[in-house]
């Protein structure tokens, strides 16, 4: 530990977060959601859209929900239908969408049979996910895995084909990780768009076909450059678990996935979010996908110096909840950000304190460090320098994943050379100050140490209070980013459904079991 932090305080934070997570899990285990059930359908093989362009998983789940049957789990009804008709899940979906099939007519199929007939589909799906994880391991082993901090850049043209060109260019310039940013409104869509898309705003729609196109392009450029280029998307919003499933099927490597982001920043109902979050993380865990949590968002909305402890508190909560989905340390990419007003005297020292503190408290986690955005202006030169200071803080404090800042942050989504310049910036600073972190120690009781202690103290208080009130009440109280949300407010509450006693989600049963058996290759989890 480089900072002389109070280990008792750290333990206390973990304890609180653990209790908070247990409390959240009680709620999660009582319900399912439309998104979870759509995910189950996708995983047993349902894909495509109906004649109106509505994805079939939506069509089916809406049918079941309207019929008051969703509390059994979609798998249950799909199993019965398969058993009764002998058709494939996809064929059943097609028929149902065409109005040629009524799930009510299969109610007499026995549960055991309904489950048994889906076994192959379930196994195939899990095998595909495992194969992807294994393939990733293989490629990382064969190619260069990259040196930390890994260089992470975003592409966001809105057009998947332009994205490909930009992503390949970035990879050739030295990027290790490519995130395809989503179009502005997608998180509020209660379905996943279908097919290759070319019309997004501020980002490109997350669709399974787009995932496939980009994965292929990055595999190509991985072989060309001899480095495994990781692909990232956003596992958040009203379709959080579906995106997790799509990512698992198309070998994405990382997913933005936070336990509270949707609640706070997208006004998505908290019950919905907690349930979706839990199941999506299971899938991420199983697929060997590293999650990236979204603590940076607290700092773009509130003041980064004042709210630093909220970042830490949230990291503890994200950690506790991630463990409950079976995510190992190496897949929990806790987020934080370099967002203190650049006019702050000794602001750089405070940034270093925060980053080093995160490293000390979460030594085995692939910390994801987010760049300055809020105080970026049209002064691209100063912005470039701020990004350099951020890169310096990253390499000094041993961050794992460095999301590079763009000099044009305040102007537009990145142009092709903005990304190139950002990569040059990071490569220069990382190399030129490679071992600076090991070389220096901080003055005991100095500015850096004191700041970290102060933040830890405040986070402890926050977590203790949240344990007292429960997380939902804490959110309602506006503890996080000053935003207040109510348990029954926000979007997507109508998609939250009480589970029936006979509720069946084969994946939520099978994955945790396999994960604890250590079933999946884990040699290269990073």
């Amino acid at each position, binding site marked *: 530990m480089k900072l002389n932090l109070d280990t008792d305080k750290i333990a206390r934070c973990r304890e609180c977060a653990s209790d908070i997570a247990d409390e959240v899990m009680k709620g999660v285990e009582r319900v399912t959601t439309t998104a979870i059930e759509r995910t189950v359908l996708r995983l047993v093989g349902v894909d495509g859209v109906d004649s109106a362009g509505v994805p079939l998983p939506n069509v089916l789940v809406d049918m079941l929900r309207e019929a008051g049957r969703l509390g059994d789990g979609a798998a249950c009804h799909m199993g019965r239908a398969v058993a009764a008709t002998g058709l494939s899940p996809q064929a059943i979906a097609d028929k149902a969408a065409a109005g040629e099939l009524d799930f009510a007519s299969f109610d007499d199929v026995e549960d055991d049979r309904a489950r048994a007939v889906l076994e192959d589909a379930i196994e195939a799906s899990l095998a595909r996910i495992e194969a992807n994880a294994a393939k990733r391991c293989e490629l990382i082993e064969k190619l260069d895995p990259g040196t930390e901090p890994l260089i992470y850049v975003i592409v*966001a043209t*809105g057009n998947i084909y332009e994205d490909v*060109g930009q992503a*390949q*260019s*970035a*990879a*050739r*310039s030295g990027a290790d990780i490519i995130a395809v940013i989503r*179009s*502005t*409104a997608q998180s*509020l869509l209660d379905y996943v768009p279908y097919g290759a898309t070319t019309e997004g*705003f*501020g980002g490109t729609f997350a669709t399974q076909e787009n995932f496939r196109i980009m994965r292929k392009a990055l595999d190509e450029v991985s072989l060309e450059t001899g480095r495994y280029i990781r692909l990232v998307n956003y596992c958040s919003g009203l379709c959080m678990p579906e995106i997790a499933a799509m990512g698992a099927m198309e070998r994405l490597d990382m997913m933005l996935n936070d336990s509270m982001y949707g609640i706070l*920043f*997208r*006004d998505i109902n908290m019950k919905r979010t907690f349930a979706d979050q839990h199941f999506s993380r299971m899938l991420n865990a199983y697929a060997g996908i590293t999650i990236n949590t979204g603590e940076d968002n607290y700092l*773009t*909305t509130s003041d980064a110096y004042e709210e630093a402890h909220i970042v830490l508190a949230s990291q503890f909560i994200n950690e506790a909840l991630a463990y409950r989905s079976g995510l190992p340390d190496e897949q929990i990419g806790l987020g934080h950000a370099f967002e203190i007003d650049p006019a702050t005297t000794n602001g750089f020292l405070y940034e270093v304190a925060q980053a080093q503190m995160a490293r000390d408290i979460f030594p085995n986690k692939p910390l994801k460090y987010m760049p300055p955005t809020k105080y970026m202006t049209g002064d691209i030169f100063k912005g470039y320098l701020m990004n350099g200071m951020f890169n310096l803080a990253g390499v000094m404090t041993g961050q794992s994943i460095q999301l590079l800042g763009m000099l044009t942050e*305040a102007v*537009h*989504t990145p*142009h*092709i*050379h903005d990304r*190139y*310049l950002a990569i040059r910036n990071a490569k220069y600073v990382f190399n030129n100050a490679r071992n600076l972190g090991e070389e220096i120690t901080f003055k005991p009781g100095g500015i850096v140490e004191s700041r970290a202690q102060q933040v830890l103290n405040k986070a402890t208080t926050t977590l203790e209070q949240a344990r007292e009130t429960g997380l939902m009440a804490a959110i309602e109280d506006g503890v996080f980013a000053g935003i207040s949300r109510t348990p029954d407010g926000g979007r997507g509450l109508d998609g939250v459904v009480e589970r029936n006693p006979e509720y069946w989600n084969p994946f939520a049963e099978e994955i945790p079991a396999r994960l604890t058996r250590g079933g999946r290759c884990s040699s290269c989890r990073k």
Partner: protein
Amino acid sequence: MPKVDLERVRPYGDTLDDGKVQLAFSLPLRYGPEAKEAARQLAMKMGFEDVDVVSAHDLGGPFTFFVVYGKCVHSVDVTQLHIPKVEVEQMDYFQINDFIRDKLGRKITVVAACTGSDAHTVGIDAIINMKGYAGEYGLERYPWFRAYNLGAQVPNETLVARAIETGADAILVSQIVTQKNVHIANLTRLVDLVEAEGIRDDVLLICGGPRISHELALELGFDAGFGPGTLPSHVAAYIAQELVRKEHRTSARLTEER
């Protein structure tokens, strides 16, 4: 230093009228002498002399990035500039409230939102919320304002409905995301909607955001537009003064009609 000729103002590097400008751009061409020459020619087409491609970078694949310096042959006649500015006399929090009390004699109602798919609330919050921005209070804090902040990703329809419902004097819209000019489309739709609802004359239509200028706002059919660095008092003063002006116009017309 020699005097600037205001009818022929040119860029200034280190000598009056040297015309020096820095450019940076990429071309969808593979790195090499051809790409470099293309960059040079392009700068010449823009009206640059002594074009110097000072650096060229291989972006990987068919893309090259350039940094270019040149001397711009163009000039601007600044004696002929027309700059649309929001017409407002600057006032502070206290002056504005007094002004409304004295000149209007009633509270002003505004509804505000970040509309469409846009979720960037920091800008509109800066103007509306109690805590305000850059040391100034937001409109919620003004005793003579009644402000409704509907938040993010609000459909235009919802916004207009709330305006009608509250009898709003002004609608305030924030648009931050501008990729593919989505803000233009969105703002235009709002104007259409307000007109369709027949309330165009009853409300001030105001938009804001980092890429919004007053000129653009006027073009789109708004009454005013506010760009980066706007303070709550700018907006409050404008609304108050404009409403008073409007009342004057209305009573003048009524008198005439009588």
